[in-house]
């Protein structure tokens, strides 16, 4: 197997239904003989999973027979949910997590403040209804918020656009 395929099988420690590549955390895989350099980027500054992610990638490559494995980190450009692939979005939805919409576009000038809950159309991952509302802007991890569906009445998680 080539290195990129091996790295492509490594799943996220907190969202094991998707791979690191599908989340857009893997930025580059460079193979040179039996040596591999993988470049990753953190989702959030304080992401506590980075060390596990580094270790998981290195372990997968070593068990596939690669020798010198280096996992590098890049901070720029900053990670955005726009990098989550279509298959990643589908798997998140299948696991009951509403995938993110398009990340907010930055206009020139000061960043506007949001004083009331956003009116957005996040569809319920269970019944597909667009009649959902936010419960809390923060969830079990930095990337998720809590919502509820007013049609099927089930609560669900939504991956926030960033």
């Amino acid at each position, binding site marked *: 197997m080539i290195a990129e395929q091996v790295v492509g099988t490594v799943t996220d*420690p907190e969202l094991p239904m998707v791979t690191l590549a599908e989340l857009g955390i893997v930025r580059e895989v460079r193979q040179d003989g039996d040596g591999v350099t993988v470049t990753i980027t953190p989702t959030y*500054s304080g992401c506590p999973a980075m060390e596990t992610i580094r*270790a998981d990638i290195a372990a997968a490559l070593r068990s596939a027979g690669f020798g010198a494995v280096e996992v590098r*980190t890049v901070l720029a450009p*900053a*990670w955005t949910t726009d990098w989550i692939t279509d298959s990643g979005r589908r798997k998140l939805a299948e696991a009951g997590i509403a995938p993110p919409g398009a990340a907010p576009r930055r206009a020139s000038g*000061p*960043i506007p403040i949001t004083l009331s809950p956003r009116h957005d159309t996040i569809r319920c991952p269970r019944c597909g209804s667009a009649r959902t509302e936010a419960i809390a802007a*923060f969830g079990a991890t930095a990337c998720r918020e809590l919502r509820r569906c007013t049609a099927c009445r089930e609560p669900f998680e939504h991956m926030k656009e960033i």
Partner: protein
Amino acid sequence: MAFDDAYGALTDHADDARWAYGTGFTDPLAGVPADLPDGVDRADLAAYCLMLGDDALIMSHRLQQWVTRAPELEDELAIANIGLDLLGQARLLLTRAGTAEGAGRDEDDLAYRREAHEFRNVRLAERDDADFAQLMARLLVFTTWRLALFDRLSGSRDPMLAAIAAKGVKELTYHRDYAAQWVVRIGDGTPLSHARMAAAISGVLPLAGELFQAHEVELRLAGVAVDPAVIRGEFDAVLAEVLTAATLEPAELPEVPATGRDGEHTAALTEILAEMQELARAVPGGAW
């Protein structure tokens, strides 16, 4: 390796040294080129990274103290998440400070092995909050200031600072929204909640005056650092918008001497460090 949850990921190690008092992890900037931009004084860059890193570290610790004390579970999650983002920013900035200093100090040395007078955070970050309204007023002032600062810092001549700031901008945007929405809800609430929010805002303003006074290090690092005086207009506009929506009186910032950046702090910082550094000082290098 794949795990059903983060706890599984953390405990699946034969080497228990991961449960160290510090981060116990590798450098958060591992594998990021650590070059310094040309013509920048190392000591000044280190001092500047320390200022911004200490702001985040101390504010993060104060936020963590609210976990188990917040009015609702949802707000505990919010406060813990904001504290975690700031802790992440602190780790990156303290690591950068150590690299720029070039004396071999890492993030743990800087967080756990300095005395209060060596900390460079603004005093706003260290204040204790007597109630939730005070916390939200302080978080609003802190995030409004830091977001405007980081937005400009993302154009820094130091690519590392620029990258840390650009990432922080995304996080600080929702931190500020969270604080502002609570200030509006409490301010524009009952007569009692309005009075408490008004008291919270007037209580935090004396600490906001020092946020816009440039330190000599910031002025010497023109192009790398941001002179905080330039963001005053944006800060005032945002604060006015929030206070108006909250039916609160406009804010007047008193001119006060900026001392936090030179290591002159209130007793509150000593109290934070006594708690934060206790284990590291009792068991130097401890891991279990």
